[in-house]
């Protein structure tokens, strides 16, 4: 049963993820992205990581994709008459694809996963609030802080870009 559900949700996640890239209509892409996130959340539920599943739905499905849709609608983007890709774009995307492939390959080959003894109950870190929070504030404290700074930088960038500095001569 669990294996069957895993294949079902994995197929939904990957299938809709491909459709996100392939769809010509940007709204369709956003909706497929939403379905893909739902599939990922279901996979987390299968791993008993309920908290992670809920957080994924809350942050990504609830807010991020809603913002995407908001922007798509505000800009009123119509797919279909997209310009063919430029040469630089194609080179850059091929390079990015190779990097991503190498990363996944490296992860598969070099990652050190200790397999649990057969029959042992492995509790996911994201299963309970307490376990998740403890990991967040001990093992992963530095990455969390760095990601926080990245978001702060992005936010400052948006403020600088969107603010008009007409009246302030010294800022120019």
């Amino acid at each position, binding site marked *: 049963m669990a294996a069957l559900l895993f294949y079902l949700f994995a197929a939904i996640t990957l299938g809709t993820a491909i459709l996100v890239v392939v769809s010509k209509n940007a709204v369709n892409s956003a909706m497929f992205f939403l379905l893909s996130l739902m599939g990922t959340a279901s996979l987390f539920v299968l791993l008993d990581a309920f*908290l992670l599943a809920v957080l994924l739905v809350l942050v990504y499905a609830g807010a991020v994709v809603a913002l995407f849709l908001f922007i798509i609608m505000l800009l009123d983007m119509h797919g279909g008459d997209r310009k063919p890709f430029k040469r630089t774009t194609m080179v850059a995307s091929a390079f990015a694809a190779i990097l991503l492939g190498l990363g996944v390959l490296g992860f598969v080959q070099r990652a050190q996963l200790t397999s649990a003894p057969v029959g042992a109950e492995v509790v996911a870190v994201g299963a309970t609030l307490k376990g998740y929070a403890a990991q967040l504030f001990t093992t992963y404290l530095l990455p969390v802080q760095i990601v926080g700074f990245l978001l702060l930088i992005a936010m400052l960038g948006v403020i600088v870009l969107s603010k008009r500095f007409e009246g302030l001569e010294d800022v120019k």
Partner: protein
Amino acid sequence: MDFSFYFDLPLALRLLLQGTAVILVLFPLAAACSMAERKISAWIQGRPGPNRTMPPFMAYVPVIAPILRSLGLFQLAADGGKFVFKEDPIPGHVNKLYFVLAPILSMIPALTTITVVPFGAYLNQAGAWVPIVLANLDVGLLAVFAVSSLGVYSIILAGWASNSKYPFLGGVRASAQLISYELSMTLSVLPVFLWVNAPGGSGTLSLFDVVQSQSQPGLWGGAWYAFLMPVSAFIFLVALFAETNRQPFDMPESEADLVGGFHTEYGAFKWSLFFVAEYCHMIVGSGIFVLLFLGGWNPLPWVPLQTVIEAIGLAGQPLLTGALAVGIFLGKVVFFIFFFMWVRWTLPRFRYDQVMTIGWKKLLPLSIANLIVYALVIAWIERS
């Protein structure tokens, strides 16, 4: 009484029965809300409201029929029937898939959030409280927030798929408003869970545990969180009005400047789905407010249900205690639905820029300050 025959049923069948029972209560309640809205608005505005409709054969029933007629219940039945038989137009200029999908999507979050909301609890033979809930999840409230945040899609898609100006504006307004107020809402409940989760515990966001922590004896234990954390309760309530698109925050549909907002192009059954979803959101939202800040199924502050049950000698009767708890909880929820309507027919609607100012410049800083103050105070109390 012996209920073992019920607990002997397969789990899937029991869950199916329970889920159906909840929907069978929620739907008529949402429908009754639409009638209550009309009657309460009439009462506030000093007019009789719907009080004429009656099927001819009911004229021969004494006493009951006139009461039902003056309550407008036959009007409710007539309106409900009308939606089924009315023509359901799909305008030619819409995106058909999303136009049809949007009202269906609006029902999904409205009905899913109810699964983790406990409506009561019963005292079992061993003397422990057992929640009456479809799924008592550890992440309870987060799950409610997560699923209800998906409700924005139905409104955005409805506005966008209608492919005309007013619905589009309504959809854009809705998405900005819902995202803005979600932040304050989430931040406002954090002090409650800081207080509920004593150090050393396993950490829980379950709504049942919040009610349990409000039903202890003593001055501090029995106080509802509306008294301990009035600012949190206030922020949550304001954000709840904004999240359910109720007046004074009904920007997405504001009929004066947007005709009907996101549902301008909708009619008949699809429109009524939006309508029922809004009332379901209101019912679930009021329920969560009651559980978090108004003591859930405890009848009065500092008077837990346990005391009442021992006083009237109901201990050891799970069915009666459960019914009493559900009754008290539903009573509070119904009062809150009345409160929603009271506010709707009392306050004028905000302008859209005022909605954004209140959300980002007033409510959000207030909720952050509230969280910091309560975190410091709770840390100080735990220390001493």
